[in-house]
């Protein structure tokens, strides 16, 4: 009999991996959706169990050796507070969006392709979970490609609504593959100097190098990894693939991507910059403060400005996502306790807020047939609950007090002031003002316009969509009021990252 408790880390990846393959054979009708809900639900339950086990054990991390191969030969799965938290977010959002997806997918994807859609969907979640849990650098690359390839396919499935989904997907494929190749190169150079692929081993080998700060191989590895990771997490100005991919993807896919994909990219940056290279090298020997903070600040300002100019609510939110990635990157590149904690909290807060908002837009697309501003006009009267969720989520994006967005910005600004970077506090303020403008654009259309066309006949979204939307929006309010869980986990994870533990 399989011991679930002892094999928990590998089951978190194995369950969706096998479940995804089986989903291909589930035929048509409601069965593919039902099966994926069960699989993602089981995965979510496993990640909750993982978190409880970790918190209960009192250990800083739980290590699992695949196939009982010692970790320097085989692959090690390593769960500490940070990735247990990210696993929880990814699996949780994965489950909620799967539950939500039924009607949206029925509406947007041809009937004979549902089984393939859900198979690819579960595999995408598998890849994201795998990246998060593994402690082996090459394994990160392989799982990164699993999640990326499936995501390209998911985006391209928007082609039946709008053929531009195809070009958006191909553009993402090319940029994403270049980014992943850079990561592969970086890992190769690291392996050249350290002779190992285990992240913890790599870290201790690097620390043992007397000429670490000037060794050219290490510098090249660092450069390739930073560029590759920036592409994957859509850090300005390497975000060009993101807006169109989010805009033309099927609604459910946009919600999943916005909430998880770029967040896992940021998590990889945590692992490589803090875990492998260490804070001393990444942020003091290298000019990362200057470069990453600069890019993040530019991203916050310019992508918020671009968001204001959008006429499609989905691409407005997509540009806003690029700006929010800016906040997350700015937080961790401060490399102090408050900044990193703010960054981790914001990964969670932004995931629930944006996930909920994209799902609300999906419900609007389901009822009205589009997400242009003209479709949204006057919808506050016809679909008050959906519109209300969108508006509350928008307040979270601005960082309004009593929403989760406020908490992360609070940490971020404290971090900036701790580091003596008052300029960043100004950037955060300007970014919030711009966010106010683009969120107001949505609110104005929703509540102060007169409905026309299909909007005038729209009815409230079905309950199977409303419940997942309000679960996420409710979480974003709940964790804005009661921050004990998120803030506690983030602060502890931040101090372990800054302590240099991989």
């Amino acid at each position, binding site marked *: 009999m399989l011991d679930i408790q002892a094999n928990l880390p590998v089951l978190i990846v194995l369950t969706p991996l096998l479940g995804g393959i089986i989903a291909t054979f589930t035929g048509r009708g409601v069965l593919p959706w039902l099966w994926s809900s069960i699989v993602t639900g089981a995965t979510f339950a496993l990640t909750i169990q993982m978190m409880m086990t970790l918190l209960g054990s009192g250990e800083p991390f739980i290590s699992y050796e695949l196939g009982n191969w010692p970790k320097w030969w085989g692959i090690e799965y390593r769960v500490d507070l940070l990735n247990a938290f990210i696993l929880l977010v990814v699996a949780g959002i994965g489950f909620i969006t799967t539950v939500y997806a039924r009607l949206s997918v029925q509406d947007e994807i041809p009937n004979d392709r549902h089984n393939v859609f859900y198979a690819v969907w579960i595999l995408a979640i598998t890849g994201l979970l795998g990246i998060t849990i593994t402690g082996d650098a090459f394994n990160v*690359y392989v799982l990164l490609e699993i999640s990326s390839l499936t995501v*390209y396919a998911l985006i391209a499935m928007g082609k039946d609504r709008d053929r531009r989904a195809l070009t958006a997907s*191909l553009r993402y*494929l*090319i940029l994403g593959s270049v980014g992943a*190749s850079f990561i*592969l190169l970086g890992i190769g150079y690291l*392996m050249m100097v350290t002779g190992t692929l285990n992240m913890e081993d790599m870290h201790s080998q690097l620390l043992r190098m007397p000429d670490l700060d000037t060794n050219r191989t290490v510098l090249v590895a660092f450069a390739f990894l930073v560029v590759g990771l920036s592409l994957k997490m859509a850090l300005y100005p390497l975000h060009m693939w993101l807006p169109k991919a989010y805009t033309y993807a099927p609604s459910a896919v946009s919600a999943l991507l916005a909430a998880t994909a770029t967040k896992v990219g940021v998590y990889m940056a945590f692992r490589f910059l803090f875990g492998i290279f260490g804070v001393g090298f990444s942020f003091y020997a290298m000019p990362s403060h200057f470069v990453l903070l600069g890019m993040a600040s530019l991203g916050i300002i310019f992508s918020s400005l671009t968001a204001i100019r*959008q006429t499609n609510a989905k691409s407005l939110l997509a540009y806003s996502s690029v700006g929010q990635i800016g906040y997350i990157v700015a937080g961790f590149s401060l490399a102090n306790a408050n900044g990193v904690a703010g960054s981790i909290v914001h990964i969670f807060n932004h995931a629930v807020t944006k996930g909920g908002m994209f799902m609300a837009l999906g419900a609007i697309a389901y009822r009205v047939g589009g997400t242009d501003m003209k479709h949204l006009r006057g919808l506050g009267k016809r679909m008050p609950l959906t519109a209300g969720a969108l508006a509350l989520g928008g307040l979270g994006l601005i960082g309004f007090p009593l929403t989760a967005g406020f908490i992360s910005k609070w940490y971020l600004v404290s971090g900036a002031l701790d580091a003596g970077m008052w300029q960043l506090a100004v950037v955060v303020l300007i970014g919030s003002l711009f966010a106010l403008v683009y969120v107001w654009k949505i609110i104005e259309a929703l509540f102060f316009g007169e409905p026309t066309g299909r909007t005038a006949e729209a009815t409230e979204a079905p309950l199977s969509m409303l419940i997942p939307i309000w679960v996420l929006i409710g979480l974003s309010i709940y964790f804005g009021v009661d921050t004990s869980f998120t803030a506690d986990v983030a602060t502890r994870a931040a101090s372990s990252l800054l302590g240099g533990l991989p």
Partner: protein
Amino acid sequence: MTELLGIYNYWIYIILMMIGFYGVIAKKNLVKQAIALGLFQTGIFLFYISMAVVDDGTAPIWTTVGDGAMKALGPYDNPLPHVLILTAIVVSVSVLAVALAIIINIQWAYGTVEYDEITELEREEGDADA
């Protein structure tokens, strides 16, 4: 000079990769872009293979000697990068397959695989942020 020529496989890797990178950026035909992407990744494989080489190394074969103990035949190349690259080749083939599948769909939807013509068609559809 001999130092530079002695590591010629690294030069080949860089040249191959840069040809591929140039193609990805400069080519307007989507199929050519996909091929260039493949070339770019192939360059990286060569890098990994080169990294494994040990002076006078042979294949990593261990064999039983007289007293029954296992012993290597001689100094051998690091087999690990080779194995990694087998995985990476599979990944690269999958990327190419997905890329070509999307390009075929683009051909069906737009009737062309030239980037400029597609952009033109999208602009006519009123793509504001192009």
